[in-house]
């Protein structure tokens, strides 16, 4: 059929009278001045940022969890550039390459902009848009009956990156569920637990005084790549080394970016950090380099007992364990101690994410106490951490807290409660044996797994990697599961198990995912709710300060959310209002800005000034040195009693003793916020937890004092076994940034790195393909001892000099199969085939054409997803995932070279 001009004219005329097409544009009050229509796109590409037109808005970066103060330049409703905020005392105006990734993820063509509901089976990849009303009504209708029936715990909230500083807790508390789960065990719990055990709950992170230090002893900490607060340390570390000649000594299994800027790098056997630290402690004690006065004043462990305990940990022993020469261990110990107090230790996942990692970190922490650098200039300092509520170290600061009214937290599941009766018998028995203080914190097996009591003893760290297996084992019945910025389906160890559970509607009848992008987790939801990005929302911010002066900042929207995306706080508010039943009274605000203004009501500067600066700090406040030596105010002393034996000052509250200080040399001082007000180098919590959970007293994790034993599966490594370790690329923020083109262009793959000698032994070279087979751990770990392999993966080799020969390393956040074309390196999705979609648009779609690293274009591709082959391996008691222990066997598959290495 052919149409004439006349037909088209008739068609056009008919349309203009119809109402099919509603307007998308409204007349604006601005005057028509057509002369100002730009000449060409090409010319505009050259003038990216017009400072006469752009607005500068300070906010807090959320490219990663470091949370630097930044300034976004906004022009034409777009954030054009992100720069550092010089007022931020932590970042000191610096940023990293990821900061501008926020622009990538705010304005990218594959972002989820609307609430979506699945069509067809879960995980089938078929969706339709629904309105917010439909979405929220459906979710509220699922949730309300749980609350009305008195079973709110059947609503499970599982978050990955929640930086709403307690706003989500407001929602879960108001609903009444204790099942507010996280992913801390995946990340940092093995290193937080030792610190909190030593220094108290207030200090899950330390703040080394790197601006004045002369010596940094780094056990697997990696601020140059990935470390909460890493950027705050980077400039300080480099300045310390370059300007002041400070020595940085790094023990690592691979030449990380931090190792590469260190003065000394020692490639150590995996999980041998504890042996080195204890041998150093022994050297320091033996050679009279310890600050005995400090130890005796502040450590809770007798010096001579400690000396006796160190006896077996000789430098020769440490050499045998780690491969580091005994003479080096002794020399470094001496150098460290002689630099005191301007010296500090540093550690993170490298030392801690092992079966023996909690004890390794305790041994490392002990070094600081031994040389008396704690809280001293250049030393291992502690600075106020969380929102200010007049806690330890926050005296004199304005209170910064969520506006009232606040819901009560759920009640613990103590024996006799309804919830307790729902627990399996063996769990009931275990919990019954817990001290009352622990029972007060017990909320069922998802939130507070009874086999891992130290995952919630100090702080709600949880054991995230066990959530899905526990749901599968029906340790908790679930009706509604809400994941928020969580990537369990991709990034958790044995992620395929999480996917199995998330796909099974009998186990999880209803899954709501709140996120910015369509990742592997959202793909397994029933409803997806589009979250506003960090450039589009409000959040309160506070963290520990490496400048040693507490400060606070505000994240504020630079642009309005795109599409129909909404800030999570608004989502929860609107859900609470729909669920009703009294829940809504905690969400009685219309405008989020009003809510945050009330949050910061006590700041001594007005709200507009705060927004304009983005940061507030009391410049006159003394630095956070020696908080433990600060005197307890007379008024508090007057209300307190003194325990004659421990000399602690305490007050009675709710029938319990709360220590507020300690008397030292007749002076009432604060001490540390631990039960003894001392540094608890010896902590009986560990053997107690072991006894109550059936962990043998001989297990390293049961020790009250820092100790060392080899990781069980490393004890008898055969010649063909290697330790598969993993790491985070410094331009990425785990699996969350693969779709940020800005980051993906820099790093998009994850070869298996190995030392030249390892490659030679395996008969492989860079570019060859190998197959790795992984096994379950030994020792007292989940499913330990099962013989079947956990999984296999194939990947290309990259030979890297400087690696430990027993270690192969592979970054764990490549190889996505969702998250859009950038993350997938142009590969089709699994679901695209399922929905009959022709995924090949490479010739048409510029977005796909830009993926120059795709295999189609002769590139290296987007890497290999490796998390499925990592066994779930929680450390005993604390539950942190032992990411770096995995034993694997390696087989050469092919000698075909990596395309980039072809001649």
């Amino acid at each position, binding site marked *: 059929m052919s149409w004439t*001009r006349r037909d088209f004219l008739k068609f056009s005329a008919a349309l203009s009278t119809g109402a099919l097409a509603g307007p998308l544009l409204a007349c604006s009050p601005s005057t028509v001045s057509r002369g100002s229509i730009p000449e060409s796109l090409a010319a505009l590409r050259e003038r990216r940022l017009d400072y006469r037109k752009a607005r500068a808005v300070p906010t807090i970066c959320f490219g990663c969890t470091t949370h630097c103060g930044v300034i976004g330049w906004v022009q034409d409703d777009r954030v054009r550039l992100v720069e550092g905020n010089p007022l931020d005392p932590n970042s000191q105006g610096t940023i990293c390459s990821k900061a501008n990734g926020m622009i990538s993820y705010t304005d990218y*063509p594959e972002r989820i902009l609307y609430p979506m509901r699945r069509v067809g089976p879960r995980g089938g990849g078929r969706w339709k848009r629904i309105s917010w009303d439909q979405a929220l009504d459906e979710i509220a209708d699922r949730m309300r009956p749980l609350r009305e029936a008195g079973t709110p715990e059947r609503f499970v909230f599982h978050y990955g990156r929640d930086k709403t500083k307690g706003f989500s807790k407001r929602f879960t508390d108001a609903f009444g569920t204790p099942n507010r789960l996280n992913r801390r065990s995946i990340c940092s719990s093995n290193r937080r637990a030792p610190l909190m055990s030593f220094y108290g709950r207030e200090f899950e992170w330390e703040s080394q005084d790197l601006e004045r230090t002369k010596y940094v002893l780094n056990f697997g900490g990696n601020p140059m790549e990935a470390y909460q607060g890493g950027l705050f340390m980077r400039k300080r570390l480099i300045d310390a080394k370059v300007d002041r000649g400070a020595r940085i000594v790094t023990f690592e299994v691979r030449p990380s970016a931090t190792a590469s800027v260190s003065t000394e790098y020692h490639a150590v056997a995996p999980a041998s950090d504890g042996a080195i630290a204890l041998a150093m402690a022994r050297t320091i004690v033996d050679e009279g380099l310890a600050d005995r006065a400090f130890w005796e004043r502040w450590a809770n462990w007798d010096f001579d007992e400690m000396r006796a305990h160190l006896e077996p940990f000789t430098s020769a022993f440490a050499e045998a364990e780690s491969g580091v020469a005994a003479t080096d261990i002794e020399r470094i110990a001496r150098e460290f101690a002689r630099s005191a107090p301007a010296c500090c230790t540093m550690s993170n996942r490298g030392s801690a994410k092992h079966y023996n990692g909690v004890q390794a970190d305790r041994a490392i922490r002990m070094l600081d106490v031994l040389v008396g650098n704690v809280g001293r200039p250049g030393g291992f300092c502690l600075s106020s951490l969380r929102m200010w509520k007049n806690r330890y170290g926050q005296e004199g600061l304005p209170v910064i807290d969520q506006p009232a009214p606040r819901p009560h937290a759920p009640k613990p599941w103590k024996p006799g409660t309804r919830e307790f009766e729902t627990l399996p018998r063996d769990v009931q028995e275990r919990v019954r044996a817990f001290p009352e203080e622990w029972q007060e914190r017990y909320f069922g097996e998802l939130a507070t797994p009874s086999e891992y009591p130290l995952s919630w003893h100090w702080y709600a760290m949880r054991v995230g990697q066990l959530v899905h297996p526990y749901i599968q084992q029906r340790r908790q019945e679930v009706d509604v599961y809400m994941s928020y910025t969580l990537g369990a389906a991709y990034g958790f160890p044995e992620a395929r198990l999480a996917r199995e559970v998330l796909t099974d509607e009998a186990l999880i009848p209803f899954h709501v995912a709140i996120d910015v992008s369509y990742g592997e987790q959202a793909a397994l939801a029933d409803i997806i709710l589009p979250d506003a990005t960090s450039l589009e929302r409000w959040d309160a911010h506070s963290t520990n300060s490496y400048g040693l002066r507490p400060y606070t900042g505000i994240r504020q929207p630079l642009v309005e959310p795109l599409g129909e995306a909404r800030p999570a706080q608004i989502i929860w508010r609107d859900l609470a209002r729909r669920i009703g039943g009294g829940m809504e009274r905690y969400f009685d605000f219309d405008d989020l800005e009003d809510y945050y203004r009330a949050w910061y009501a006590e700041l001594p500067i007005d709200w507009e000034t705060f927004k304009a600066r983005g940061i507030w700090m009391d410049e006159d406040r003394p630095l956070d040195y020696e908080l433990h030596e600060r005197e307890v105010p007379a008024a508090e002393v007057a209300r307190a009693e003194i325990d004659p034996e421990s000399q602690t000052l305490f007050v009675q509250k709710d029938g319990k003793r709360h220590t507020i200080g300690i008397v030292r040399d007749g002076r009432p001082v604060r001490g540390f916020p631990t039960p003894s007000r001392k540094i608890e180098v010896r902590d009986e919590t560990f053997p107690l937890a072991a006894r109550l959970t059936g962990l043998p007293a001989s297990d390293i994790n049961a020790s009250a004092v820092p100790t060392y034993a080899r990781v069980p599966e490393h004890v008898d490594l055969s010649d063909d076994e290697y330790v598969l370790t993993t790491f985070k690329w410094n331009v990425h923020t785990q699996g969350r940034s693969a779709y940020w083109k800005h980051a993906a262009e820099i790093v998009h793959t994850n070869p298996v790195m190995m030392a030249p000698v390892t490659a030679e032994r395996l008969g492989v070279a860079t570019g060859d393909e190998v197959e790795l087979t992984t096994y379950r751990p030994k020792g007292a770990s989940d499913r330990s001892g099962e013989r079947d392999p956990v999984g296999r993966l194939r990947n290309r080799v990259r030979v890297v000099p400087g690696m430990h020969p027993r270690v192969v390393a592979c970054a764990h956040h490549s190889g996505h199969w969702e998250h859009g074309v950038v993350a997938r390196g142009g590969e089709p999705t699994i679901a695209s085939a399922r929905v009959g*979609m022709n995924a090949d648009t490479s010739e048409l779609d*510029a977005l796909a054409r830009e993926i120059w690293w795709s295999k189609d274009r002769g590139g290296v591709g987007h890497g290999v997803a490796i998390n499925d082959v990592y066994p779930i391996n929680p450390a005993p008691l604390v539950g942190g995932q032992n990411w770096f222990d995995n034993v694997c066997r390696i087989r050469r598959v092919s000698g075909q070279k990596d395309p980039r290495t072809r001649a």
Partner: protein
Amino acid sequence: MPEIRTILSAKERAPIDRLIASLLVREVDRATWIRLREDPIPGFFSIEDPGFRDWIEREPTADRIEALAEEFARLFLLPDGVPPFASAWIEGDREPLAEALSTFIGETMEALGVEPIRVEPWGRLPLDHLALLLELVARAGELEGSEEGASSIQAHLHRELLGPWVAAFGRSLEARATSPIYRGLGSVLVALHGEC
């Protein structure tokens, strides 16, 4: 489909641009389905696909409406679809390009005295969303004859904002859509705004 661009003036094309814009931002609901049956719309989509008329004459059952909604989401709202954004298609480094597009479109809207309407279901559309661009071009087209130089503005907008990519977008839509309405949208876009 003949090249409508050469057959109709910008002003005459404006209602067609609007029709397409509306189909790009909103799913076909029952009411729209019924409107799409009204002559001469079926004839128009049948130029390329003679089966269109039979297809649209079917009963708009809930299942069929849902299937269309699902296809809409797959094509225009989710990753791996046919993103209706200029910045996803125009050749060049994405970020400077997307920024340049925002400036271009922002300044053009200001000059034409218009601003985007934000309502459900589309909310705050990215400025380079094809629907907005079509609406902008339609606006400029409507000024034709009433205001001197409007036609050159329309041509300028077409050359800068649509010409470089809409044909590729349309062809991709033709290739990847399964229903006659979205395949038809692809063909119409090629005919309306193919390469200059």
